[in-house]
C-alpha cells in the first residue's frame, strides 16, 4: 500500500461514495415504482438477478482480486461448488457460506 491518505481525501471519498451509491439505488426505484413496465421489460428484469449473480460468481471465483489463477490450483472453484451444493441441500445461507469458506481454507493449505 502507498502513502497514508489525507483526512480531506478520506472525507471526500466517504461523501462521494455515500451520494453515488444512494443515487444508483434510489433513482430506478423511485421512477419505476409509479409506472407499470411493459411485459418485455418485466421479463428482462426477471433474468437480471440470476445474470448478475452468475457474473459475480465467475468474477470472484475465477479472478479473485482481478488476478487470474490457473484453474487446477484455484481452491475457489471446488469451494464454490461446495457452497452451492450445501445451499441446495440445506437452504441455509450461513451454512453454505461457512462450508465454502472452510473448504477454501483447507484446499488452499493443500494446493
Amino acid at each position, binding site marked *: 500500500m502507498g502513502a497514508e491518505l489525507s483526512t480531506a481525501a478520506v472525507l471526500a471519498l466517504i461523501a462521494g461514495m455515500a451520494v453515488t451509491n444512494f443515487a444508483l439505488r434510489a433513482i430506478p426505484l423511485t421512477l419505476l415504482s409509479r409506472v407499470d413496465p411493459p411485459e418485455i421489460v418485466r421479463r428482462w428484469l426477471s433474468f437480471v438477478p440470476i445474470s448478475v449473480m452468475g457474473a459475480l460468481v465467475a468474477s470472484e471465483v475465477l479472478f479473485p482480486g482481478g488476478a487470474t489463477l490457473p484453474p487446477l490450483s484455484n481452491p475457489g472453484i471446488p469451494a464454490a461448488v461446495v457452497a452451492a451444493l450445501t445451499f441446495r441441500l440445506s437452504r441455509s445461507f450461513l451454512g453454505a457460506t461457512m462450508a465454502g469458506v472452510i473448504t*477454501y481454507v483447507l484446499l488452499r493449505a493443500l494446493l
Partner: protein
Amino acid sequence: MSSFPDALKERIPQQESGSPSPAGGFAAGLSAGLPVFLGYAPVGAAFGVLASRLGFSVWEAAACSATALAGAGQFIALSLLGGGATVPATLIATAVVNLRYVLFSATLAPHLKGVSRPARSWLAFTLTDETFAVNITGIRKGMATPASMAGVGFIAWCGWVLGTIAGASGAGLISDPRAWGVDFAMAAMFSALFVALAENRSHVVTGVAAGALVLALHWASSMGVRIEPSWFIVIAAISAATIATVASNGR
C-alpha cells in the same frame, strides 16, 4: 428508527397471505437477514483492517461503511486509492462496479408500488447483493412485506458497520485476515445466492452464460482488447439477460 413502523404500514399489493404487524414483519426480516449479518461482519472487519492500514481512523472507516454499504465497491476504492488513484477517479470506478444496484433497484420497483417514500428510501439505501437476493426470494414466495425487507436491510447494515468497527479498531491485532478465508466469504455467499435465485432451467442457463461472458471479457482483455474491467459485471449481466429475453420470446 422509531418512525419506521408507521412508514411501513403499507403492504406489497401482490401479497395475499395474512401477514403480521409491521413490528412482527420487521422482526421476521431481522431473522431472515441473520445469515447476511454473519456473512457481512467478517468481511466488514477485513475492510476495517485494510482501511485503517491506509490511514482511515476507526470512525472514518465506520462512516464509510455506514453510508456507502457497498461491499466490493469499498474494497475497490481502497485498492485504487492505495495505488495512487485520485478521489474522483476512484468514485467513478466504484460507481461503475455498483451499477448493478440500478438493475436490482429496477427489479424491485414493481413490487414496491404504494410503499411510502421514507420506507422506499430505506429499502434503496440498504439494497445490496445479499439483501436483494433475500428479499426477491421472499417476494417470489409471497412472504416479504416492506417491514420485513426493512428488517433484512437493518440487520445487514448492522453486520457491515459493526464488522468494520471491530476490524478497524483491532487492526493491529489481526496480522492477516486472509488466513481465515475471509477473502472467500463473498464468493461463497454469491454461490449460495446463485442457487437461491435460480428458479428454473432457463435461469440456470442464463446465469451460467453471464459467467461465461465474464470469462470471455477477461480473455478479450488479456488479448489486448481495451475494456475497462470494472464494467465486466454489468456488461455480462445485461448481455445475458437480454439474450435470455430474446430467446424466451413467444414461449
